[in-house]
């Protein structure tokens, strides 16, 4: 018996040890290679997406859909002659022994974090092509550059190859001038891919993740044609005249933001000559506004009237010592003179150069390029938008890595000080810099409505899931308000019901957990004689305004010498030889394309005619300095109510 008891005790002790051995569980510092960076729910995650992603009636984002990529590739490669990497390389003359071909390897420290191996070539006919092998050793930690990624690019570790991008600067399918086209290829099969996961935060449709930075536009697709097909939009200011010319550019190689290896063959001094060659090719892609005798400009065509020439060319020249490109190595250019004159070189160096310039440098039109931020005044003119995107929305800086770096840098405070100086609340009451991720209430834009039920929406509020609406004051500032009620006031979709005309001020507080937004006020001007009824506004009403005389059509015409990107005239949009219902449907799609349903007041359809960054200035009837309902902003109110109602056709 004693033996049995002892044996039992031993077994129990052994069992206890075995159970203890089953512990583990991991430490917080454990990293599992191969896992993507964690996406924290509730934090900003709208990276590499256009500010206007083209929200569809069903709520989907057209610019991130596979259909968008399919339409894009159909436009630039209708015969699928470049639907694999091998075919694309062959079509662009790679490894043929003709032209000039070079390869560079570096670490993209600033923008996407990859180790990059880029092979570029200039063909004898002047066309350019680059394909980039992007290497990322996934370590599951923060999304950041690691020298390991550069190491992987050097040894071409296939397990770290996350995507292969191709950019070519060549004529469209029907010939014409060269323009940039963007491709993405499967790293294993080489097949062309509709989607690309550039930052480990999910697939996005081509060419979106490329052109969102490279200066391209993301207009909506056309409506279906007679055959039932949708097409990529045609931008009227594209000199190529080709669908698929999104006005994207070739970005300069900003060598000072790269990291190089110390391995022989891959040092900076060894890579500089090839990088300069590539930068000279990039320079070739920018048209010249005036004749030049400098040899590096010989490859540049003359700019067409009104064509945007980009500011990247100036950056490249400055980085290599100016005209003639006398310097062998890239040197980070000094801040443009306007910034120096304004005494804002520090703001430029800590904010614009590291966090904005790489994309904004490539963005603009021939008539309106405020957004390129080449002067302090341009930057200043965008203060409201910078506050909205950087401080509130968190969709700028555009890439997650740049975003993280910016918010960990002195640039964050420098920008906050700038914004505070512009009268924008970029710091809290305690002086701390406000960061995106806190609840932001958006009750929608101030507007004029009729008596009766008016649906409201807090749907464009940010980082919030609970809402509290209230009526702050009624007509003539009456407190407590009379003449109106609010039902479902604690939901995202309440209903305002007024029985008396006048101006009502409503308040929305958005919350998530214990975090509450500042109250956001909404002015609703109730005017029962408003015509047409907001719910009855249709595209025909909008078109009537756009085509009322020459106010809009005078410039926005396909024959305009000003070459606007979009026309508001009725013309044969689908090219079938006649102007018919399909053209009108395409017109509607183009106009709807200029609505940003995620941030209604920023819609180009509202901003441009109201004189914001618009070559044509302020349009009659669009004066937003006036209160809703005033005759001087009647057209703006019409457009706004149409949009708020979903912009029905």
């Amino acid at each position, binding site marked *: 018996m004693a033996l049995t008891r002892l044996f039992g005790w031993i077994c129990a002790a052994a069992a206890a040890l075995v159970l203890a051995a089953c512990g583990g569980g991991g430490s917080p510092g454990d990293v599992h290679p191969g896992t993507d960076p964690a996406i924290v729910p509730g934090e900003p995650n709208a990276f590499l997406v256009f500010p206007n992603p083209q929200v569809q009636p069903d709520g989907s984002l057209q610019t991130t859909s596979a259909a968008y990529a399919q339409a894009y590739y159909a436009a630039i490669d209708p015969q699928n002659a470049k639907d694999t990497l091998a075919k694309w390389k062959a079509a662009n003359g790679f490894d043929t022994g003709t032209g000039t071909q070079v390869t560079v390897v570096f670490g993209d420290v600033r923008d996407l974090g990859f180790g990059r191996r880029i092979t570029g070539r200039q063909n004898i006919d002047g066309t350019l092509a680059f394909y980039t092998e992007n290497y990322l050793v996934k370590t599951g930690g923060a999304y950041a550059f690691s020298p390991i990624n550069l190491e*992987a690019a050097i040894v071409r570790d296939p397990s770290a190859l996350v995507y292969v991008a191709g950019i070519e600067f060549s004529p469209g399918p029907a010939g014409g001038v060269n323009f940039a086209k963007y491709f993405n290829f499967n790293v294993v099969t080489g097949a062309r891919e509709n989607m690309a996961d550039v930052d480990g935060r999910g697939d996005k449709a081509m060419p979106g993740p490329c052109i969102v930075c490279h200066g391209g536009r993301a207009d909506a697709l056309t409506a279906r044609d007679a055959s039932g097909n949708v097409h990529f939009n045609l931008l009227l200011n594209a000199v190529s005249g080709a669908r698929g010319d999104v006005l994207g550019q070739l970005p300069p190689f900003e060598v000072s933001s790269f990291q190089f290896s110390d391995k022989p063959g891959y040092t900076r001094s060894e890579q500089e000559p090839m990088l300069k060659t590539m930068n000279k090719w990039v320079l070739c892609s920018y048209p010249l506004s005036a004749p030049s005798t400098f040899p590096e400009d010989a490859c540049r065509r003359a700019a067409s009237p009104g064509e945007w020439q980009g500011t990247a060319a100036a950056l490249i020249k400055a980085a290599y010592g100016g005209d003639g490109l006398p310097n062998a190595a890239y040197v980070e250019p000094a801040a443009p003179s306007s910034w120096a004159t304004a005494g804002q070189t520090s703001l430029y160096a800590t904010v614009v150069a590291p966090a904005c310039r790489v994309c904004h440098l490539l963005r603009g039109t021939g008539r309106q390029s405020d957004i390129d931020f080449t002067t302090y005044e341009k930057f200043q003119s965008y203060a409201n938008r910078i506050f909205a995107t950087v401080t509130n929305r968190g969709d700028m800086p555009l890439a997650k890595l740049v975003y993280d770096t910016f918010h960990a840098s002195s640039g964050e405070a420098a920008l906050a000080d700038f914004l505070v100086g512009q009268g924008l609340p970029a710091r809290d009451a305690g002086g701390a810099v406000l960061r995106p991720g806190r609840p932001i209430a958006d009750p929608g834009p101030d507007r004029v409505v009729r008596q009766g039920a008016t649906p409201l929406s807090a749907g464009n509020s940010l980082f919030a899931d609970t809402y509290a609406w209230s009526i702050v004051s009624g007509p003539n500032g009456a407190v407590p308000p009379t003449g109106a009620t609010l039902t479902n006031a604690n939901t995202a979709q309440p209903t305002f019901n007024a029985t008396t005309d006048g101006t009502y001020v409503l308040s929305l507080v958005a919350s998530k957990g214990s975090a509450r937004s500042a109250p956001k006020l909404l002015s609703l001007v109730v005017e029962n004689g408003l015509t047409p009824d907001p719910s009855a506004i249709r595209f025909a009403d909008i078109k009537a305004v756009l085509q009322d005389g020459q106010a809009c059509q005078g410039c926005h015409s396909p024959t305009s010498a000003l070459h606007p990107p979009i026309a508001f005239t009725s013309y044969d949009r689908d090219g079938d030889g006649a102007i018919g219902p399909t053209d009108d449907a395409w017109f509607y799609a183009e106009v709807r394309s200029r609505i940003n349903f995620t941030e209604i007041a920023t819609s180009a359809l509202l901003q441009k005619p109201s004189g914001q960054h618009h070559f044509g200035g302020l349009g009659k009837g669009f004066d937003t300095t006036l209160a809703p309902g005033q005759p001087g902003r009647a057209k703006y109110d019409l457009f706004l109510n149409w949009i708020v109602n979903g912009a029905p056709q």
Partner: protein
Amino acid sequence: MVRGPVSGDQDELLQSGSNRPFLDSVNIELGYSYDDNVTLGRTGDEILWDQSLALGASASRAFRIGDKTRLVVRGLLNGEKFNRYNGLSNLSGGLEAEIQYRQSGAFDAITYAAFARGWLDNFASHLRDGSHYSLGVSARGALTDRIALFAELAHNERHAQSEVWNVLDHSALLNLDYSVGESGTLYLTGQYRRGDVVSDGHATLVNVSLAKVFVLDDAFPNEQWFAYRSDARTWISTVGYNLPLGQQASLDISWRRVQSTPTAHLNFDVQGSLRYVANQYSIVLLKRF
């Protein structure tokens, strides 16, 4: 690891009796070791050496189950103090239970055994804290009056605060003792382990590519090195000499060579070998009570 000759336990196999002391044997070990690669580093700049002092005690008792079968229970307590990298210093305690079967008391009869061993580990590096256990079978026997053999197959697991040290492997061990009479015993041990190994090194592409999981190692705080777990084939070879110091003591001197080769196939050229090699030199004073 088998330290010292293993054939000496045979004489206890079938002993039993109500008048014997509660413990059949108590052993104390005091040892010094020099390890030329405590990091199990692959390249020269990832290899660190250290030396350690170890003190261990074990006590065992055998319980008769039948004429040919008995249960041996052994308790163990070991402490090891490293000189340069204190994070490796550790204290561990455990239990071992082994059921032994021997067909007869004949000289050449083989003793078969099944065992379970479990330890709790406490390191100065808390990432390594945890436990480990082994389950296995063994056989031992004498070939001649001078030569004894011991073989063991085992499943080994370790669990720790960091998943890096959550390791699993299987091992096969063969030991040969060659008695040189009263002058002592020369022994050779070969062990093959297939499974996880933990190494330390820089955050390089090779290391990350080999790693199943890695962590910034707190045992080498000045190095900013990462410990990583990878799958490997490991050969452990030991040659030692056990010198008797009277009836109840001995001095054991050994050289142990560990060679570990990752099983992962890297899809790129690697300069140098992926192999890790460590040499451990030990001198241990064993005292039996």
